[in-house]
């Protein structure tokens, strides 16, 4: 490979690089990941490891096929991040083929077929999650109740291997349902919302995340913590998460005011499902979201609207992944219409008008 040093400036660069960006995002996900592993035991650890390792494997395979530089591509950290993100959205006791197959789909079909990093129109992890949900609805909605590491109910090492690799069924004592799923079922059964909520929902419990759910989505507070770290490190803008969370909260509040017996409030929506993970880690994926701040505000708000619609009136209890994919598809359009105003030009690209001469100092009035 010939390396040509560009002659144009700037000849000094700031030290930030893609691998360090990716590393910081992974770091921000560590607390939620560790909590998920603690909460759901060794099978969850298996899922995380399977996803990350197979992400590297599939990425390496594709890179080899097109003769790119293997080390350079693997070192950018994007594959690890995709694998980890997918793992966090899977049921914690998912069988190995869900983890590996899903990751393969994310990396190969979701990213590498478009040309690799930066080229994919859809968020690879969300694409894989949706594909898995449509193809394997049973496995993808088999939730377990928390069985923390070292607790009597937690599976030991041998059991964890059986669960992950041999498809052992979840024991009845541990089978659980997510808050969103439970409430939806109750509503469908004709229960009023306050009763459905009363039985399962406590904001504090949802905040900490001691509940059934996807591997890394349960702890709203730890994900928020990671998100704040990314904001502090300037890895992400506040625009997307704030617009997403605020719009979702506003929609929930408005409908709750209209009819409290049918519509749950803002806290319920913000603390459940994949909302926090999406707000700071999925929607902020730069590749698939708009490039300008105005566009990002619109993007976040659009996602929130879709999430609310799907959750409230749609057939699925959770709609984040669908919402993200739909908005991803709109990103090029948003980017086309939301451009910054150019210096010295109006929004339409015409030169700014010169000031009228009367407004000038007296000395200029006699100008020819």
């Amino acid at each position, binding site marked *: 490979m010939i390396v040509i040093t560009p002659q144009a400036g700037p000849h*000094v660069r700031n030290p930030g690089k893609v691998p360090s960006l990716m590393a910081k995002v992974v770091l921000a996900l560590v607390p939620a990941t560790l909590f998920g592993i603690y909460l759901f035991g060794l099978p969850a650890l298996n899922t995380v490891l399977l996803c990350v390792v197979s992400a590297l494997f599939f990425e390496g395979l594709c890179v080899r096929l097109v003769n790119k530089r293997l080390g350079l591509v693997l070192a950018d950290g994007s594959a690890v991040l995709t694998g980890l993100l997918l793992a966090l959205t899977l049921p914690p006791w998912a069988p190995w083929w869900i983890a590996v197959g899903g990751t393969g789909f994310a990396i190969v079909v979701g990213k590498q077929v478009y040309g690799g990093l930066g080229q994919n129109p859809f968020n690879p992890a969300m694409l894989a999650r949706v594909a898995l949900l449509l193809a394997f609805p049973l496995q993808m909605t088999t939730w377990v109740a928390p069985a923390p590491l070292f607790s009597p109910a937690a599976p030991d090492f041998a059991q964890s291997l059986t669960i992950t690799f041999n498809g052992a069924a979840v024991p009845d004592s541990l089978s659980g349902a997510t808050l969103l799923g439970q409430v939806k079922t109750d509503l469908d059964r004709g229960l009023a919302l306050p009763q459905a909520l009363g039985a399962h929902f406590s904001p504090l419990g949802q905040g900490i995340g001691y509940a059934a759910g996807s591997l890394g989505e349960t702890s709203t507070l730890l994900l928020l913590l990671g998100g704040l770290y990314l904001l502090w490190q300037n890895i992400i803008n506040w625009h997307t998460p704030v617009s997403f969370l605020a719009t979702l909260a506003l929609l929930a509040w408005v409908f709750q005011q209209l009819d409290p017996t049918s519509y749950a409030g803002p806290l319920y929506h913000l603390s459940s499902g994949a909302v926090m993970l999406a707000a700071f880690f999925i929607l902020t994926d730069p590749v698939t979201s708009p490039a300008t701040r105005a566009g990002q505000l619109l993007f976040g708000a659009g996602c929130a609207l879709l999430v609310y619609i799907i959750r409230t009136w749609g057939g699925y209890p959770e709609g984040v992944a669908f919402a993200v994919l739909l908005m991803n598809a709109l990103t090029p359009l948003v980017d086309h219409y939301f451009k910054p105003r150019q210096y010295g*030009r109006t929004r339409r690209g015409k030169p700014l008008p010169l000031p009228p001469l009367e407004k000038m100092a007296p000395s*200029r009035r006699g100008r020819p």
Partner: protein
Amino acid sequence: MKLFTFRGGVHPSERKERTRDLPIEPMPLPRRLYVPLQQHIGEPAVPRVSAGDRVQPGQLLGEGAGRISAPVHAPAHGRVLEVRDFASPHPAALPVATAVIEVADQQPSVCRAVEDPFRLDGDTLARRIREAGIVGMGGATFPAAVKLGMARRDRVETLIINGGECEPYLTCDDRLMRERGEEILQGIELMLRCLDAERAVIVVEDNKDAALANLRALCTEPDRIRTVSVPTRYPQGSQKQMIQSVTGREVPAGSHSTELGVVMHNVATAFAVFEALVRGKPLTSRIVTVGGGAVPRPANLEVPLGTLVSDLLRYCGVEEDDYERLLVGGPMMGQWLPHAQVPVVKGSSGIIALSEAETRVSLPQPCIRCSRCVEVCPAGLLPLELAKRIRKEDIDGAGSLGLKDCIACGSCAYVCPSKIPLVQYFHYGKGQLQARAVQARKLERTAELAASKERRVEEMEKAKAEQAARRKAEAAAKKAAAGTAPAENAPKSCAIEGD
């Protein structure tokens, strides 16, 4: 005074600490000077000396030619060895006509007695500034007199003096403002007089406390000349951005700042005006910061124009080519030099020799659309989209996204985490746009010429046909009159013109 801000920008690490506190020292005259006849934007100067001529310091070497041009003067007493093509400080070391002067051992003073410039009228001042060969000293090298002329035509009321020096490493303007504030102020006074303008604002970035303090103390009449401090942010020193910082207005696309009633000059230009009009010394030297990690003894030097960069480096302790990358100007917008055998010219604000550690850059990686480039672009462009289009040769697409409005400040490439050489793409794209414009003009002209030829041919045919008809009619008339007159007598001349 109310100040404003501009969009985007970056904070590169300043790296000015090594030379900030070093006083300006005169660089000794080298044995030979290589004075290019083009050190400015516009037409090259026409040589007025030839091989063997003896020249005095300040003597005219080349005369400005055309509307946008500047004369060039001899920096020292000596003998012209030859006028020949010689490498210029340019990434391709393009050869330009250069006067090679062998410097004499004994040097008379460059300064001459002149009449009191504060009594001259604006036209005379403008003419003297032009005759002194003064150009924009910040690096743009646009002839100062032409800019002043435009400002005079538009009756500019505010003169902005650029003491921003936002490029890393450079400290030449800083030192000038600290050591020669009095002279700068006189230069500004003279420019105000030339412009018949009301006030001048000296703009200094707030990382130059000593310069600010010095100038503030000297500005005794703040309503006329005032010093203001602006936040340190690259590209504060860019003309459009600084005008916005001071006036809060953007220069409309396609307009000149003078149409807003402001004109901007560099502090070093003000100093050059002082030297030319008060001391009678045309622009034959400038302050140059020699810096960078590969320079053992960095310095702020007052360098005679035409001194070779290699002489400068040797003077500052750099062993033969012992650096990783050599630059003229600052590291953000400065140009890469392929070798050091090129002269220092009017626009060379710095000679920066970077070490290996300072230039280490990883290979470009794919764009992850992080849009940091969009946030920092002071021109309000979408660098990532421009680069994407230029990469696939969609030059028209890049043009419609405003490629021409790019000021090549390099903020985008500076922040890019994928280390994509964005400015390199933009230079290429702009080059292509320009080539297309030239091509389009050519085609247009060809079509015009072809159409006019067609018209001409048509007219000729028409004339011929008319003549033939006339002849026929005449012949017929004659025939009718004479009955049997011979046809051979009909006129044979015809009106065919050469093409």
